[in-house]
């Protein structure tokens, strides 16, 4: 009897591992191993001898940290880091502010399903559009000669703004990201709002609180945990911004190959065929992402990632 109990409990102890096994196996193969491999590649480099034209004239050798040193001292590296900081300062507040505003408005209009349904679907729609296609569409809208706005402004006798010129390009790229991301964040915040029992507002309303005051004092505090999570995911997306500027690049003189850190990775890997430098820069970006997101979560008390059975 006791034997079977022990056996059973041993078997039971293996259960969570059995459930995790397939996921972990694939995780190891397709995420952990490639990341490890990237780490390995970042410590290697290709060494060419002489003219490098004969067959077998190149060998792979250990590079130590020289790829990292070269990446970080590239004169274009720091500007690209500052650029995405500026970009993040535009995108994250604009996108989350807009998402919160729309979520609150949807919530306030719960009694008008036609309006809120239409608005919800419309605002969520951009989520269905791949970043590459979204940037392509906005690209057409930005170019004065092919844009409907350019046409309309031209008819009004107003000069058409060059949205991809150096003074506007950051906003132009940010707009594509805001357009694509607002809907998703709105849905997250709206879901949080919906989980609040209306009775909570009713009493406030009876006490004479304005809608604005209810939103500010009751609703926003309730969605704060969700807001924190959307903030973290938006921040990660900002650090990794790539597809939008990459697609808009050929349309303008103002977006360089190293416009964002991830574009530099792309340039090194795909344009310069130097995967070792690309791997080194990738590792730095990944580390920065980890530090920032875990650091931030620690700062706000690990509210979201840490939650257990509720």
């Amino acid at each position, binding site marked *: 009897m006791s034997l079977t109990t022990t056996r059973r409990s041993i078997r039971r102890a293996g259960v969570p591992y059995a459930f995790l096994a397939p996921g972990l196996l694939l995780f190891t193969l397709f995420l952990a191993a490639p990341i490890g491999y990237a780490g390995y590649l970042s410590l290697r*480099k*290709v*060494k*060419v*001898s*002489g*003219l*490098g*034209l004969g*067959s*077998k*004239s*190149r060998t792979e050798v250990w590079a130590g940290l020289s790829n990292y040193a*070269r990446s970080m001292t590239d004169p*274009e590296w720091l500007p690209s880091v500052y650029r995405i900081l500026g970009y993040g300062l535009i995108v994250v507040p604009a996108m989350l502010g807009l998402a919160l505003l729309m979520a609150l408005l949807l919530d306030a209009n719960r009694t008008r399903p036609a309006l809120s349904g239409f608005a919800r679907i419309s605002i969520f729609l951009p989520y269905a559009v791949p970043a590459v296609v979204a940037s392509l569409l906005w*690209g*057409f809208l930005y*170019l*004065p*000669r*092919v844009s409907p706005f350019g046409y309309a402004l031209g008819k009004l006798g107003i000069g058409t703004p060059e949205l991809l*010129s*150096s003074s506007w390009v950051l906003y132009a790229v940010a707009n594509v990201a805001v357009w694509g991301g607002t809907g998703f964040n709105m849905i997250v915040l709206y879901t949080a709002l919906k989980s609040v029992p209306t009775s909570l507002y009713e009493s406030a309303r009876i006490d004479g609180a304005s809608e604005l005051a209810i939103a500010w004092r009751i609703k926003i505090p309730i969605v704060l945990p969700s807001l924190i999570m959307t903030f973290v995911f938006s921040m990660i997306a900002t650090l990794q911004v790539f597809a939008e500027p990459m697609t808009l690049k*050929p*349309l*303008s*003189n*103002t*977006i*360089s*190959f*190293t416009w964002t850190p991830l574009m530099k990775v792309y*340039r090194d890997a*795909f*344009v*310069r*065929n*130097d*995967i070792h430098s690309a791997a080194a820069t990738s590792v730095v970006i990944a580390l920065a992402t980890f530090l920032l997101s875990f650091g931030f979560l620690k700062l706000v008390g690990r509210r979201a990632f840490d939650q257990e059975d509720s």
Partner: protein
Amino acid sequence: MKKTLAPLLASLTAAALFTTTACSGSDDKADSAGGGEKVALTYWSWAPNMDKVVEGWNSTHPDIHVTVNKQDGGDPAVTKLLTAIKAGSGAPDVMQAEYQKIPTLISADALADISSQAGSLKDKFPAAAWNSVTLGGDALYGVPQDSGPLMFFYRSDVFEKNGLQAPKTWDDYAAAAEKIHKTNPKQYLGTFSAADAGLFVGLAQQAGASWWGVQGDSWTVDVNDAATQKVAGYWGGLVEKGVIDNKPMYTPEWNAALNDGSQVGWVSAVWAPGVLEGSAKETKGKWKAASMPQWDAASPATGNWGGSATSVTSQSKHPKEAAEFIAWLNSDPAALKLLAGTANVYPAANDATSVLTTPPAFFAGQSDFYTIAAEAGKQARPFTYGPNVNVAYSAFNDAFGKAAESKKASAFTESLATIQKATVDDMKNSGFTVAG
């Protein structure tokens, strides 16, 4: 739960079946490795309708079957090839390779030397094109397919209205650009495109530059030489004056400008009619082709923009058959006819003149189109490409993008030092021996 799992399993099974068929398709190649059997070759190309050209080979060569895998363009194809080389598998047998990428590909050990298999092809091609696939040595890394001698295209109606003639020299071009823009501030004779390093290199080539070179056992890099300085200063001056535009080519904006008559000229290459056909549709019949404006009208010269060879990759298990195919593709009269007529390329082979008798449709009225092109082809100056062309070109994009945006001639000429440094640093870092 059964309800949910059933379709899942069904789709999984479907996927498995799907993939098995997909895999077995590529297995044919491995199976046919033995001699005497049917050989299957894969061919990466981005030229339009190349599959139709290859049908001409497949129908007459039952033992060697070639399948075309259409690529997005020269850069993505090279990226994929180099990744496959690095991985040790996944490369095609045959590959379209732009001339400027050949040293890069050789340096990555991506191309097979087919000198022993190709037979005597040398005499069928112009010396300059042949030099691009041999790099002046004994090895042969491909067979030239098409070439892109620079030519000048302009709206003859606009020139006539302004009392202008096709510019003979770059001074004429500058004067024409100024006059046209003055008469109609919306019109430009051209644009300086920081996105097209290939065109700029062609212009530098015309002026006598050669950005790379080989001196004994070391490379030389000469991006910032007097000839290139002259070209950069010239275009920077035009942009600073505002008489030509500073926006990149090949954008919807630029296409619209060609079509609505805001761009009334294009310094381009022999393949331009195919592009204009699409982008400047509504101005058909108003364009004319001319020889390039010259720095020195007494000794006319030109450069190249575009052009590519067909190469056998180092991973091909059938280099002999592949070499046979590319020799046919680029020198057989029947193939040349298909290349010119179906794939719209300007074949590099000497024999091409015999198949290029009627002018391209967009220039139907200009019977001497291919005479001008052939003349230009002969005047191309020698130019050597190095093993890191992409580094120089991407540095060009970034540096000249800034310069064009600033509209300052000094920024144009200063950009060259930036490109020179980026190119040399990269080569030294990789371990290439660089002189100077």
